[in-house]
């Protein structure tokens, strides 16, 4: 359970820092009247939707940290046989990076008000993301064709389950991306469009980060790394 505990420690750190900035040391029973009542910290200036997405991403992060925890705990048992990582995953990773980059370009363009570039970025991102999903499916087929079935070993089970869960989150993101793209051609105001694109980009960067972590985990490098650390410590 160490992965999830480290993750929660980070969350607790952020929460603690935020609480300290919100005046948890103040003495409200002594402070009445508007002077203490209307401090600047009341308004963070960040759009509510972004904070909402941030909280949601913390929950998603928690979910994948728990999968990683379960992975490490199950891995220590004797029947674990690591599976070869298809080379295709490298290509998929590249495609997902492209998708994230395209969205980042769309964000920059949206801030400058270049609507054509925004549209280009959104469409590029949509297609590269679809390519990523197709690539993941192809990787699944490749593995199952060479005998690495879901039930034949827990390492395989985790591989299909975690990549599948990541894929589902990508599919959910595609719904939002599709709506934003439709809005880019439709009736979204420039401000609304910029916010939507920024939210998509935030989600995409996060899922790219999750994918990199998942890749490192499934390829076994995470376990190797921990072993090296353990040897250094003992």
């Amino acid at each position: 359970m160490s992965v999830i505990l480290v993750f929660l420690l980070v969350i607790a750190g952020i929460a603690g820092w935020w609480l300290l900035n919100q005046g948890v040391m103040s003495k409200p029973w002594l402070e009445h009247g508007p002077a203490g009542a209307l401090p600047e910290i009341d308004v963070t200036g960040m759009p509510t939707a972004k904070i909402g997405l941030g909280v949601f991403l913390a929950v998603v992060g928690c979910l994948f940290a728990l999968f990683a925890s379960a992975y490490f705990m199950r891995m220590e048992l004797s029947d674990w046989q690591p599976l070869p990582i298809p080379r295709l995953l490298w290509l998929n990773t590249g495609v997902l990076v492209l998708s994230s980059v395209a969205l980042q370009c769309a964000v920059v363009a949206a801030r400058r008000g270049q609507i054509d570039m925004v549209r280009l970025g959104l469409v590029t991102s949509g297609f590269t993301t679809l390519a990523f999903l197709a690539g993941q499916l192809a990787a699944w087929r490749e593995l199952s064709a060479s005998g690495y079935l879901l039930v034949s070993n827990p390492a395989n089970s985790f591989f299909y389950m975690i990549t599948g869960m990541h894929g589902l989150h990508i599919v959910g993101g595609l719904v939002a991306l599709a709506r934003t793209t439709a809005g880019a051609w439709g009736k979204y105001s420039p401000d609304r469009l910029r916010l939507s694109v920024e939210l998509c980009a935030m989600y995409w960067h996060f899922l790219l980060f999750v994918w990199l972590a998942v890749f490192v985990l499934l390829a076994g490098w995470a376990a190797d790394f921990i072993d090296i650390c353990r040897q250094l410590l003992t």
Partner: protein
Amino acid sequence: MVDVTPGAVDVIPPAEVPEVELYHPHSWWTKYVFSQDAKVIAIQYSGTAIAIGMVALVLSWLMRLQLGFPGTFDFITPEAYYQFITMHGMIMVIYLLTALFLGGFGNYLIPLMVGARDMVFPYVNMLSYWIYLLAVLVLVASFFAPGGPTGAGWTLYPPQAILGGTPGGQQAGIILMLVSLILFIIGFTMGGLNYVVTVLQGRARGMTLMRMPLTVWGIFTATVMALLAFPALFVASVMMLFDRVLGTSFFMPALVEMGEQLSYGGGSPILFQHLFWFFGHPEVYIVALPAFGIVSDLISTHARKNIFGYRMMVWAIVGIGALSFIVWAHHMYVSGMHPYFGFFFATTTLIIAVPTAIKVYNWVLTLWRGDIHLTIPMLFALAFIVTFVNGGLTGLFLGNVVVDVPLSDTMFVVAHFHMVMGVAPILVIFGAIYHWYPKITGRMLNEALGQFHFWVTFVGAYAIFFPMHYVGLVGVPRRYPEIGEPAFITAPVENLNAFITVAALVVGFAQLVFLFNLIWSIWNGREAGGNPWRATTLEWQTSETPPPHGNFGKELPIVYRWAYDYSVPGAKEDFIAQNDPGTGRPATGLA
């Protein structure tokens, strides 16, 4: 001390919080059924939770009938008994308590108490309820599925949960249970995002974090915890679903069933226990923290006295929330783990008693020399303190490994957790309903029926669970539908069991009186007015009662003070509302 002269107040500009884009309902359907108004959603959540809770109540009657009078009821087979246990536990903990505290009270109180027009994402909030309802329907469907609901126990421990020997294990029961849990978690996450972000972003001008009522602090912290803890149950449910449906071996070791080798092999049931209790222990506090918050407000309001140690109360809530994530394995002392591991978790478990004890002291000190009004909400709040201390003390016993190991599988544990996370939070729920019902409907609940309900529930709950501790100490095991006639079971134990059953039936019927009161008072209750308890918090200062869509009239309130200005020396009245600009209080007040 930051203070202002009354004259300076007039220059405050009207609220500059940007107007929330409210969805304006056009038809009866969008106003009362597919509503995006947090208050309507709150009532929908509460109604559904109470309805499914009644099912769980009936299940507990059936269990008690079997335990009190074994062999009398033919239809309660051992299989049925296990199904009753499982569904009773799961419904009460998740579909009633969690949904009612966070979905019900969270939705109703957060926007009103922080001075917001609505939740920040009303559409997502509406979806949250409908997914919750779907989860409940899937759960109910398992009663009608072939083989009935799962009988795996509310902890759903593998491997037995998905094997043929357990009711519903090889039928639809366990699948429906897991799917229902997954749906619940998805729905809750949608609601939880709303509760958290509304507290972060939706507060009225002047409502600093440290001016929020403790109710909001409790619900807020519990929601943050739930958002981080429920994923563990989600992961456990998904993995068990894989094991059950697709035949993987995440949790399943190699097994021989009825002389036949199953295809499972190598999995770890302990892995499931870790995931489950990583959710399961925070869940106790997800239910307890809102209760802590609400009870603080009830006590302060009905004792006409400011809460003692507000800052300490806030820190204790946050501290308990953080600590509750590192105590989970105290539910697993008997799982064969390393003794040092148990030592660590026993230590953290005992440490968590410190902030909890601070809260209890602060409640008692709030009451000290207060102008105590023994209204029905107050009676329930006082009953909560007693019951919570009682259940908490047995928790200190069970937190120690050496005490827990012999007691672990006895009725003592059943008595402990029912006291601390069954009866105690339910008492707060009742108190809160009596307290806020006038705001929700505009009418008071009937006082005489309320008195009857309180005394039967409180005394009855003790009649049920106090003797149960002794039954457990004698060694009566839990989870057994029938204990036969072992040497240590003497006649007094059998009599006690029968007595507990009778008490459970009586307490159950008293809840019907409460339900009648809830419905009858909608039309026949005494008119309450806007602020019957003369309370300070913003929900009592709305221009209309019940508050309309959008909560506050044309302008949002501006908050000038904390939530606990009761009996301020020199003030005109014995309370000063949070949005009172402060002319009622001399500038030299509390220097």
